[in-house]
């Protein structure tokens, strides 16, 4: 088990190098650079001398080899440098946003799991009944509804409903307050994006739970359990659900990793200062150092989450051993 974990962690190194090389090259293939956008994009009278001063100060006039060397050394020493746009350390820029993104990801995952597991199980054990049909409509609608659209509807719905009921429109806060400073202010902002994202997330997990449960419920050991006269509740919870959870755990893991850095549009809709928004800004601003660091972070998150999912497999299903 330990050997397996160490092997997987070591495998992260070539994965990160490959991702780093790819993002380094891709960023430099996009036309324009941060100085052109920052100084020339405003339409000001900016002469070449000013642009060159900017490029020199950011190291953009150095050779590609030197730039890649600096980047590689930065990764190796965990010194990612400063954002080309704000001049602040990249780690500081990411740390500020990470807390919010992580909170939304956790809240959305909890929303999804709390809704999806009971719905998926009910849908499977009540297959082809009205309950199954309702849950299927709910889940297919969730898959078909983009989170950002649901977010917009939530915002407009709150504004219109509150104005109708109380005479003054109410909107959730548009600036983040950490949960330990003011839990109410924090939740009144974060609950809505968690619901918007969690609904689609839940819909996907409901579908997966349902189909996994249906498959397991047809297995011989479930039939045997029933023949032995076990209570249906015990059969579902201890025999069927536990075995049906493996693909569900994989899906939850992948979705969770995706939420770290992937909430691009939802963050914009709710004005969340998270990693998704930072990612888009960094790419649009040609902020090479920040984009590279963000890509490396997301790759690392995916690798770690996948490792955790694999380790959870062994805990859920004792038949699985890693050697």
């Amino acid at each position, binding site marked *: 088990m330990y050997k397996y974990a160490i092997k997987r962690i070591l495998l992260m190194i070539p994965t990160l190098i490959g991702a780093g090389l790819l993002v380094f090259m891709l960023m430099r293939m996009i036309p324009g*650079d941060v100085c052109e956008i920052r100084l020339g*994009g405003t*339409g*000001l009278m*900016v*002469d070449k001398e*000013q642009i060159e001063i900017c490029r020199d100060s950011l190291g953009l006039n150095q050779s590609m080899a030197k730039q890649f060397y600096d980047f590689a050394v930065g990764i190796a020493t965990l010194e990612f440098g400063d954002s080309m746009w704000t001049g602040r350390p990249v780690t500081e*820029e990411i740390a500020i946003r990470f807390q919010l993104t992580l909170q939304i990801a956790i809240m959305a995952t909890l929303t999804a799991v709390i809704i999806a597991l009971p719905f998926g199980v009910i849908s499977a054990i009540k297959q082809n009944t009205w309950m199954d049909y309702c849950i299927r409509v709910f889940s297919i609608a969730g898959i078909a509804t983009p989170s950002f659209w649901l977010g917009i509807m939530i915002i407009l719905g709150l504004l219109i409903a509150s104005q109708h009921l109380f005479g003054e*429109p109410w909107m959730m806060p548009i600036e983040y307050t950490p949960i330990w400073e003011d839990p109410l202010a924090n939740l009144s902002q974060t609950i809505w994006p968690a619901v918007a994202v969690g609904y689609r997330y839940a819909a996907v997990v409901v579908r997966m739970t349902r189909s996994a449960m249906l498959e397991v419920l047809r297995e011989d050991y479930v039939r045997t359990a029933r023949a032995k006269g076990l209570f249906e509740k015990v059969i579902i919870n201890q025999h069927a659900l536990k075995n049906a959870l493996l693909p569900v755990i994989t899906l939850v893991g992948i979705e969770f990793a995706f939420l770290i850095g992937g909430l691009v549009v939802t963050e914009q*809709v709710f004005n969340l200062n998270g990693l998704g928004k930072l990612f888009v800004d960094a790419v649009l601003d040609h902020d090479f150092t920040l984009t590279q660091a963000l890509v490396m972070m997301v790759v690392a998150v995916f690798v770690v989450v996948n490792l955790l999912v694999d380790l959870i497999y062994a805990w859920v299903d004792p038949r699985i051993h890693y050697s």
Partner: protein
Amino acid sequence: MKLKTLKILAGTTAALLLTAGVATAESPKRGGILNFVVGSKIPSMDGHMEGTFGMIHPIRPFYSTLIRVNPANPSSTTDFVCDVCSSFSSSDDGKTHTFVIRQDIKFHDGEPLTAADVKATYDKLVFPPKGILSLRKKFFSMVDSITTPDKYTLVMKLKYPSPTFIPSVAMPFNFIYSKKDLDTHGYTWHQKNVNGTGAFVFVQHQPGAFVEGKRFDGYHHKGKPYLDGYKAISAPKMAVRLQAIRGDRAAIEFRGFPPKARDDLISALGDKITVQEGDWNCSLLVTPNHKAKPFDDKRVRRALSLAVDRWTGSKALSKIAIVKTVGGVVFPSHPLAATKDELTKIPGFWTDIDKSRAEAKRLLKEAGQSNLTFTLLNRAVDQPYRILGVWLIDQWRKIGVKVTQNAVPTGPWVDSLRKKKDYQVAIDANCQSIVNPIVDVSKYLGSASNNYAQYTDEPMESMHEKMSRSGDEAEQRRIMRQFEQRLYGEEAHIIPTLWWYKINPHRSYVKGWKIAPSHYLNQHLDQVWLDK
């Protein structure tokens, strides 16, 4: 539908009337925090090296400038008043400008402000050392020397008298820094740190989220500011900014909204919303690449300009986009701007569009380009770039020209204009802060770094040189007409569209703030108060 329109109109009228009535009748109240939304982000906090309103709106209130646009009359394009000075004067030959500095000003760290601080600031702006960015350096190319004959007097000597000097000094980016800070911490310290003499003291900056300021009790404009503080909340999406005002999470957005957003707010909130509107010192241009055939032929360029019906377009587009006024090369209300009579003499501004388009077709035929097709490079930003792009394509279709729009993100758009120069025709804009026409029109010189059309025109360079050095407004005006006629008419180097139009709907309890011709101006917030 009709009822809704009437309601909006009634609401607008009521709101506008309310503003006009209240401005004179009420006296300011002290207290409260102003929350406002900003549709951009802060690169650095150093005004000397930035050009975005994303920095100006949250950071400007921490700083003072030597002179500024009159906060009581910001719509005027020529009304400048002292900020850290008590008076300023010019010598008879226009080459020496003397500023008497107030003796009651303190920086937020408690240090008194003297002429030495102003000199150190302007030395950084006008004569930056090697490797230090100063985006306003070119605006001060006429400055020969800056001296301080005594502790509270600053003298700037010019190489030649220039009508552009005083407006350049009034630019909102020219934050006054402390000499001590510059000497002790260096010229890059202000990128991440704040120590000014403005109405508000820096509290915190949460990158990507907000900037917070609190009242500076030692502010030199006595009795101000009225607010206890402010919070500038970053909200890049327009829908969020709009709903934030509707839901009262923010009271105002200083850049401007499109007409539809204004109407939605009025429709939802009625007289709780006040609207201020006015011309914006931004004009949208079509830039033909003179090095790409057939746009090297002025007959083709003139035809493209003649096809555009600006007068009718203004009426239709002003309902959906942030453009409105038909104008020439100078900001419409400035004394140097063309009158309507003067304007309608320039090809492309004729009021008879049928005659104009017939001439356009004739010119295209003469140039052998009757079946002209090209790609229009545009910026993938709706307001007003893409909307104007679609409108232009339709205008050109009416003379038989087929155009495809290629709207790309800002990065590739700037790269194509400035570096690659691989486009045929592009949409570009000329947006400035202070209305300073002779500087503003320098974009149209072939030698200008922000002119992307790739032409050289010696007569225009010479006209501009004469205007820049003329102390006589009548002469400046006369030369400006020749410049305009050549730029838009004879050569059609650049094809003008419409001037932008600024629309600021805000919560009616925000008082004291008046709209200016630019979203960069009048943002020190010392005159703003809340009627709550």
